[in-house]
């Protein structure tokens, strides 16, 4: 078993009467790209802030890279992009990156490559951050999080404000960071990107972990929509043991079937007069909606 980059046990945080995070037990292995999903207010940002020691958990423990979360020295190995990124408007882009690299105490070994990847020119870097567009600020945010080659990268909604082309550059930067051995933990609302880049995903709902597993497992656990057309009338009861029938008429049945029940359904359909069969590919989005509807 590889070492844990992040490990939480019963982590919880209460803000007055509001329980923002409850009993979160989670392990992220080193080298993983881990997606953290949930609607607004699910507790994603609270989790990340507990991991960084920005807030103190009211219950449970957390460790990052084998050391207690909140210990200042461990943060030398961590890169972080806040969800609501704010920068110093009087700094230029270059001054921002220099200052944050100095605070990290590590050389910004990946800065040049990231600037190139995100299309930052010397002129852009020389401009005051206050004059940047939101997208430019977000790019600087991503670069500052990765420039010092941290072992663990925590990204809170990283593609917010990035146009599709820059998003591609961002995905590429994740691939490179991962190839360099970094662990990436990022929260997102954008499910296709999580599907695309993550090995595993966790889903939070109202501060509680509702699911954790590989993206494939999440997809497989999901109900698949199967639509069958028959050449002559078939009673829906013929298929009801294999899933939930959503709608039907004389010659067509639409139903939701678990991955596990699919083989039995297909065996049963083989004995029926099928004219056409459609089975949607499972999407993470379906799993997400299933948990949160």
């Amino acid at each position, binding site marked *: 078993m590889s070492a844990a980059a992040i490990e939480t046990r019963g982590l919880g945080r209460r803000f007055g009467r509001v329980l923002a995070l409850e009993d979160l037990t989670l392990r992220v292995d080193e080298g993983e790209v881990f997606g953290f999903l949930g609607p607004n207010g699910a507790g994603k940002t609270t989790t990340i802030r507990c991991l960084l020691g920005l807030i103190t958990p009211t219950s449970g423990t957390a460790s990052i890279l084998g050391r207690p979360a909140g210990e200042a020295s461990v*943060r030398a190995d961590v890169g*972080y992009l806040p969800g609501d990124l704010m920068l110093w408007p009087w700094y230029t882009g270059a001054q921002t990156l220099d200052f944050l690299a100095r*605070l990290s*105490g590590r050389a910004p070994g990946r800065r040049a490559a990231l600037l190139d990847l995100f299309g930052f020119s010397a002129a852009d870097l020389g401009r005051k951050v206050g004059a940047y567009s939101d997208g430019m600020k977000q790019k600087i945010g991503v670069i500052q999080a990765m420039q010092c080659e941290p072992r663990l990268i925590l990204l809170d909604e990283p593609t917010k404000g990035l146009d599709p082309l820059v998003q591609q550059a961002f995905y590429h930067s994740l691939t490179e960071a991962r190839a360099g051995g970094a662990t990436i933990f990022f929260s997102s609302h954008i499910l296709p990107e999580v599907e695309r880049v993550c090995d595993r995903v966790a889903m939070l709902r109202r501060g509680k972990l509702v699911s954790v597993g590989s993206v494939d497992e999440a997809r497989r656990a999901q109900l698949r929509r199967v639509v069958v057309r028959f050449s002559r009338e078939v009673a829906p009861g013929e298929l009801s043991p294999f899933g939930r029938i959503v709608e039907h008429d004389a010659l067509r049945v639409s139903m939701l079937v678990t991955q596990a029940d699919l083989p039995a359904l297909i065996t049963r359909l083989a004995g029926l007069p099928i004219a056409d069969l459609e089975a949607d590919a499972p999407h993470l989005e379906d799993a997400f909606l299933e948990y949160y509807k």
Partner: protein
Amino acid sequence: MSILALLGHAWRRHRVALLVLGTAFFLFQWLFTKLAPSPSQAGAIQQLLQLLPPAFMQMFGNEIAANLNPRGALSFGWAHPFGILLAGAWVARVSAGALAGEIGGGTMDLMAARPVPRWSAVTAAVLALAAGLAFILLMGWAGTATGIAGRPSLGLNANLFLRIAAADWMLFLSFGCIGLLISAAGRSGGTVLGIVSATIGVSFALDYLARAWAPIHWTRALSLFMYYRPQRLLADGFAPGDVIPFLLTTAVASTLAFVVFAKRDL
């Protein structure tokens, strides 16, 4: 390492204000040396004052008379509200901006997510506060010294005014550490700026009113300005009573600022 980086950050943030405040304080103290009466002028004005009604003299005249000599006039310049305003502006600006200002501006997350111990953020703020204050007050002293050098007839030793600058530094460092304590607990730089400015203003007003109005004379002890006595410093030098209240306030307020900031959620 992180303290140096944070000091550099404070310098970039406050350098323009620092230079403006320092220059203004220099010019203000230099101007006072131009306005200060020479010993012969002071003697003539003293004689005129004797002609005022005794009731008026009892209320205001003694203070005026005490300042009607070169030494008194220049020491009055070091207790003038304009000088208080300049030093107070620095103290309020730096203490509010360092902790609560970064939190309110949303930039503290970027700094605190790095291997920067919380105590180093407070230490850097104290150092920036103290160094900037020293610069402003030394600029004021340079104004006094330049003016005295240009008016030998005043017959004053400029080095004596370093005592006042040092006491002024201790006074405002105390206010700065109180400001940092408020900032360590606050979430908005603007709010902290207002509270610190009000604290200095109320303290100054309290000292002034309590001196002028006997029934509230006892409230002077509540004001740090009571322990800042430029004229006495010039005459007698430092006594323990001129230093201990400032040292105590600075030590207690800064310690509490360290503790509060270390424990709080950002």
